[in-house]
């Protein structure tokens, strides 16, 4: 299951049978919170919720893959998502002003999409 706020990811994967896609109309944080609730329900986290090197207060877009089926609570998933939310909050406490041009927004969507594609292709 893919949880994303990146419409490029949604458009690309929404008709794939192998993955359910949940589109979040919202922020990176909203994606993290949705993922957390899913983990509490028993879904397993498959990709790391933090980007690498793109700090959470830089990129507005995030796509996370979790398992299609739920089982009992996965503790590793839980710890990682909680740490990620804390990390997100830390960076957003620094509160930088963001004024994105269309080009920057598209580039962020592209990077998020390619990282996700890379992960899926590598499976």
């Amino acid at each position, binding site marked *: 299951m893919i949880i994303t706020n990146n419409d490029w990811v949604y458009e690309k994967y929404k008709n794939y049978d192998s993955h359910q896609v949940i589109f979040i109309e919202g922020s990176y944080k909203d994606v993290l919170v949705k993922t957390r609730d899913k983990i509490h329900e028993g879904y397993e986290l498959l990709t*790391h919720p933090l980007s*690498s090197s793109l*700090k959470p207060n830089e990129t507005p877009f995030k796509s996370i893959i979790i398992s299609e089926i739920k089982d009992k609570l996965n503790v590793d998933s839980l710890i990682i998502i909680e740490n990620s939310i804390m*990390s997100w909050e830390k960076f957003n406490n620094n509160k930088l002003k963001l004024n*994105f041009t269309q080009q920057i927004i598209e580039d962020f969507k592209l990077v998020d999409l390619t*990282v*996700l594609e890379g*992960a899926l292709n590598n499976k």
Partner: protein
Amino acid sequence: MKLELGYIYIKDIQFAEESKVENGTLYVNKEKVKELVLEDEHFKSVEVDLAKPGESTRIMPVKDVIEPRVKVEGPGGIFPGMVSKVETVGSGKTHVLKGAAVVTTGKIVAFQEGIIDMTGPGSEYTPFSKLNNLVLICEPVDGLKQHDHERALRFAGYKVAVYLGELARTLVPDQVEVFETPTVKEGLKLYPELPRVAYVLMLQSQGLMHDTYVYGVDAKQTLTTMLYPTEIMDGAIVSGNCVSACDKNTTYHHINNPVVHDLFSEHGKTINFVGVIITNENVYLADKERSSNWSAKLAEFLGLDGVIISQEGFGNPDTDLIMNCKKIEAKGIKTVIITDEYAGRDGSSQSLADADASANAVVTGGNANQVINLPALEKVIGYTSVADIIAGGFSGSLHEDGSITAELQVITGATNEMGFNKLSAR
């Protein structure tokens, strides 16, 4: 495996009719360099510029920094699998233009960072301010996709570095250093009493602009494996990573890996430096588990007593770092990890995104959120518009007079996690 590095010290760089090295000056035929870059049809034009230590010059946005080297004896060539054949490198003789570098700049995506100041406060934080740099500003053809742009720029850098390295082929080095790694069997015989130590080198491997290549293979498709340390000195590992300027490992960092050098300096004296374990930093958690399992397995298999682990990047790689550390410690092997911190501008936040009690020996490259003021410099090489974007949001602000207030993370190499610098934090 034994490699002899011959250093030719470069103290100045100049444009000239003929490319050559004479009395410590690197002369570069600008047109020849342009021709070389423009062989690639992805570029419509290229500018070549110089940036020397102490000059009032700012380079941005920096993509990669590459040291010119040439293979003089022994199999293979520099950057195997990339611009040379996939021959196992790391033995014989290699000449180095020490003190010179090729710097590639480019706006692959709109939010790229990476500043090198050749003078002023910013210059203290980047090792590249001490080098005589040949800077490439490559203009892509219209509509070039980011992937193709990234790759073209990466190769432009290697080609120019190899071209300059070739100038050193017949020169007599100013200084020679020899590095030798015995086989496992010989090592046990030679140094039966010394603790066996390896270096676990973590490679960024996430996707566009976050990649590393090993003998031409994208590191995210590799399993954890081993290299002789000298293979790295011949360019077995190159950087395709252009985000997070402060803690990415440029190709220059790889080829001059400081952990490799400092472990070699103790080799045969206080330790037996067995080799380098390379492992990736993938997005999939299962990959993270597998790769760190393999690091621990190889460490155990090699009968190690200790390892140094270095990281690249921040965020989800913190998880790889802690997994590597925890699993290797669990095998009874002592670890020291090298990382950097994102402790917030005031230094009071939790520095890492992951933690474990077994990570009790940490070296830090400093807090990347610390704010620094970079005064306006006379000349800017590269894309000035990028300053606006850096200013626009992420990490700082551009003032009207051209000065920049920014977090340390915009400076190339500032908080390097191989321990390249003296910067630290407490």
